[in-house]
């Protein structure tokens, strides 16, 4: 188990040394996964809120499908996006394969259902609470959705973090559509997979520790934002 000691030492060395390659890889990881989270929220939050408020035939089937899509295997998403973006595929003319954009697309598809399904639950619970009030105020459905999303914003931040966590931790999709190309599409998880396949286990583990620290940092940042915002909201 001496690997753990060695890995922790290496992780400290990597961070303290401000290794240029590492900074590049960390930067791309954050860029890809945060952008994917943003887009997934733009799609998933309204979709989740509509599913929570609207009543239409086939709604239950929709809920089951969206919930099931939370279990999409990253490697399958990668494969589907690869087949679309490959030069031989329908969107090949865009020349997007092996670019960060391709990785963002894959991660967006992966986490949009998570954001939609979880926000649907959050908004639906709120809606049950406020339905009477909305009726008495004669709010339109759009206004109700907006009010619910705003009122649930703190709980929805956790939903976004769940999506970000899934995106930044997955390797299957970005490996296929990004190709793990040095200085172009290499992110933390694909770098960890590469070092593992080179048998450099302590280095792989050290990169894993760095990834965990970054995830901690992002979550800490969002948490403190939320604390500040809560203080203002209820001051």
């Amino acid at each position, binding site marked *: 188990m001496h690997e753990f000691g060695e890995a922790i030492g290496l992780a400290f060395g990597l961070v303290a040394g401000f290794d240029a390659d590492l900074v590049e890889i960390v930067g791309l990881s954050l860029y890809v996964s945060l952008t994917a989270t943003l887009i997934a929220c733009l799609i998933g939050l309204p979709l989740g809120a509509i599913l929570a408020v609207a009543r239409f035939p086939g709604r239950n089937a929709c809920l089951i499908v969206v919930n099931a899509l939370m279990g999409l295997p990253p490697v399958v998403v990668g494969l589907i996006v690869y087949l679309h973006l*490959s030069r*031989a595929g329908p969107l090949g003319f865009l020349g997007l394969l*092996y*670019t960060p954009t391709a990785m963002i697309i894959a991660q967006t598809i992966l986490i949009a259902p998570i954001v939609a399904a979880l926000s649907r639950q959050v908004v639906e619970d709120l809606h049950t609470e406020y339905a009477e009030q909305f009726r008495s105020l004669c709010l339109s459905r759009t206004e109700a959705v907006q009010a619910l999303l705003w009122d649930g914003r703190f709980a929805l931040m956790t939903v976004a973090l769940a999506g970000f966590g899934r995106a930044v931790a997955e390797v299957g999709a970005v490996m296929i559509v990004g190709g793990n190309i040095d200085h*172009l599409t290499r992110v933390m998880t694909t770098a960890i997979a590469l070092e*593992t396949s080179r048998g450099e286990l302590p280095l792989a583990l050290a990169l894993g520790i760095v990834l965990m620290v970054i995830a901690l940092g992002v979550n800490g940042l969002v948490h403190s934002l939320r604390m500040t915002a809560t203080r203002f909201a209820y001051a």
Partner: protein
Amino acid sequence: MIKKGVLAAFLVSVAVTGGGAAAEGAIFVQSTTSTANSGLYDHLLPAFSERTGITVNVVAVGTGQAIKNAANCDGDVLLVHAKGAEEAFVAQGGGVERTDLMYNDFVIVGPDGDPAGVAGLSDAGTALTRIASSGALFASRGDDSGTHKKEIGLWAEAGVDPVAASGGWYRETGSGMGATLNAGIGMGAYVMTDRATWISFGNKQDYTVKVEGDPALFNQYGVILVSPDKCANVDAEAGQAFIDWLVSDAGQEAIASYSVEGQQLFFPNAPGHD
């Protein structure tokens, strides 16, 4: 609805990130893993890029997948090690021409205990027969890679059908060379690997080379320009410049000068340089 969601994801992503497309003067090489994992490209590419200004992006996957990706036009140059499959790729119009580039050899590595008693053998067939009859574990790539194709050929020559014992003593990992080495070493199995990957591998534990020196273990690498007639996106000029440099005196010397722990990993043998 889901289809719409996927489409929306595509469109929004493209809009937000301003599309992709790599920089001008950049080529994509679909490559076998051994050349990338052993660090050869880190040694070669800076010299080439400095001279020509062409950026070389390496996608390292198994030979089987590399050829499939190239057949889908997702690369400009193919650099792999399975001569039969490479020639078939060219014959089917996927590539322009196949050129020998360099070689090394395969070895069979095993644990200290050497349960099948194959240490020191220089005959791959005898070694594999002994492993099969002793029931010692053998970890195979099982992924249609160049190394896997070679291994299957060696079993056939030895007259053993290991797939019948798949899941028993014959373990197909279905993964890359490094992952298979990690798995094989973890379970105490013999593994056939190319020497370059083995020398630069960092998790050897008590494993050493047990079988080597059989001419049947020869490992030839070839390089192919993806056909610009079939794939309009191929940068034939830059791709050909890369291949020309690899087989030139300068490129061949650069390959020969790469060593790890004092051992040369690849031996150049492009036509006219033997």
